[in-house]
């Protein structure tokens, strides 16, 4: 599979944008600038980008509590997102959603979601709409290794097969749901087999390697887009931070985090590969890094300066209209 250089550069930019967004969000949370519960995607960037690079605005994604990466990869406005995290009324969701509910329907982003496995059934609905309209769209749901034991996830998978809709279930295995390892929470030995037994193919990817994810995601999405019904994608890659900011991470093996950052950093892996191949120069990537840093600097500055919501906005946006009452 050859990927045009332009696309490679864009993929890198997206991954780098997510990384910097998350690292700056982390810093601002530690500073007390960002309220609420925030779950960072650092380390898993290649998953989101490897999938979303196959999608356009009319395809949809739905995400999780750990949703920043998916939203950025699908094209959400980064400055609007940062403003949202800060709770500004200029945030993407006017400060009403926050980190766990970032959404941008016009970009096909059906939202981060605070309920584990809340997304897959909704994504099946989007896929069903695509099937009914016969418009070639697909619907991707991202969810974690912890989500696969929630009833809604199973129901969504079976319904997608029954209705043969173009739904792609992306399971991001970062080994932990909160403080519990997948080896405990998933009873069976082979989760891929358990999932495939629902009646659709599951493709495997190395989640720290953009190329691996991109290739596997391409197969899954192609399968669905061609009208063959749902497909699955499993991507394995640890997160670099705790479950939430402040997590003491007692569950980590000694050296696990260092090892992850050292040997499973999708940005390093990507840079290594494309520069070794000679397709892209370090300078080109460095230039992107600088761009991204500037963007995130701007985003944080804008978020800090952005207007705060006012009391009367609390009751706005509940309904399109609320009758005569």
């Amino acid at each position, binding site marked *: 599979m050859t990927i045009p250089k332009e696309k490679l550069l864009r993929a890198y930019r997206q991954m780098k944008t997510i990384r910097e967004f998350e690292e700056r969000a982390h810093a601002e949370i530690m500073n007390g600038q960002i309220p609420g519960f925030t779950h960072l995607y650092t380390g898993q960037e290649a998953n989101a980008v490897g999938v979303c690079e196959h999608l356009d605005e009319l395809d949809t994604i739905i995400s999780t509590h750990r949703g920043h990466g998916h939203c950025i990869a699908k094209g959400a406005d980064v400055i609007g997102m940062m403003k949202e995290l800060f709770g500004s009324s200029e945030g993407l*969701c006017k400060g009403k959603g926050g980190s766990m509910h970032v959404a941008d329907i016009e970009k096909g982003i059906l939202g981060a979601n605070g309920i584990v496995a809340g997304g897959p059934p*909704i994504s099946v609905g989007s896929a069903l709409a695509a099937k009914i309209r016969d418009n070639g769209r697909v619907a991707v749901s991202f969810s974690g290794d912890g989500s696969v034991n929630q009833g809604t996830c199973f129901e969504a998978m079976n319904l997608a097969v029954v209705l043969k809709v173009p739904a792609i279930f992306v399971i991001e295995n970062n080994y932990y749901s909160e403080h519990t390892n997948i080896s405990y929470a998933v009873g069976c030995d082979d989760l891929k087999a358990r999932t495939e037994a629902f009646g659709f193919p599951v493709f495997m990817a190395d989640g720290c390697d953009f190329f691996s994810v991109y290739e596997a995601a391409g197969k899954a999405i192609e399968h669905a887009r061609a009208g063959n019904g749902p497909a699955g994608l499993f991507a394995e890659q640890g997160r670099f931070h705790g479950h939430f900011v402040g997590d003491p991470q007692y569950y980590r093996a000694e050296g696990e985090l260092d090892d992850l950052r050292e040997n499973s950093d999708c940005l390093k892996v990507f840079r290594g590969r494309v520069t070794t191949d000679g397709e892209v120069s370090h300078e080109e990537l460095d230039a992107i890094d600088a761009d991204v840093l500037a963007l995130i600097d701007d985003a944080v500055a804008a978020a800090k300066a952005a207007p705060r919501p006012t009391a009367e906005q609390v009751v706005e946006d509940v309904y399109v209209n*609320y009758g005569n009452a």
Partner: protein
Amino acid sequence: MPVKTMRDAINEALHQAMAEDDSVFVIGEDVAGCNGSQGEVGSVGGVFGVTGGLYKAFGPNRCIDTPISESAIVGAAAGAALVGMRPVAEIMFADFIGVCMDQIVNQMGKFRYMFGGKSTCPAVIRFASGGGFSAASQHSQAMYQILTAFPGLKVVVPSNAYDAKGLLLQAIKDDDPVMFFEPKALYQEACEVPDEMYTIPFGQAAYVREGDDCTVVAFGQMVPRAAAAIDALEAEGISCDLIDPRTTSPLDEAAILESVEATGRLVVVDETPPRCSLTADIAALAADKAFHALKAPIKQVCAPHSPTPFSPELEAEYIPSAEKIIAAIKATLA
């Protein structure tokens, strides 16, 4: 004008809405029926027969049978609605909200708010609701009071065939998620229903009876029962307003308050248990906003604080009777 049952009126509304707008589709368990079997697909039309004929008229892409997976059904409706379809999902018995509550209250009901007003979710969920069939504790709950508590949802409870058609057509047109509760005890009840399409706006109560002595507010299958109670009291020279809010969210507060201002007395009737109920909700409304007009304690007539019993004798005692409504009205006049 032709006379139709509530079942037929709802069915007609579905046919008309689907014919008019091809983004409308129905989805649920056995809404077509016979899928995978050797029988003719579409010959069932829902266990209560409400979706009859839709499969034959609109085909498998618009009348969609599902496995027994209520969360996935509601999720599918929610997701399709987020991208512009107008799904009408059927959750057979309202009691089954238990297995799909999150998708209703935490997902579709909150999208718009969480997303800063930038999404619409024009989905309708239909439920067969309430008691009267000796269907026992898990198949008899009204449940609309529970969903009324959740901002972001609109909640509709028709009490007759005419309203059911107009409210359902409004629900399907409506850009917010609408929970449509069909009191199953009323499916066979008939009244005049125009053949044409028409809508009834949400948040507009119906005045079912007009009178001077007491305001009665009743919901769903309690509306005809309250009407019967009021009619019986006429002989004793007692006349009452009977208000059917038709939608519990939005609620036509003005209609209720105006009536209470005039009568000074209020009885609220519903078939649910008493705690955190609509009867309490309406009583509390009046105890604040019509307080100075009140001449007597506000009476709630509802089921007791127990699950629904199976035995017909017990259920007859459980669901408010016309006698109990009469007694409550009289109590306010005592």
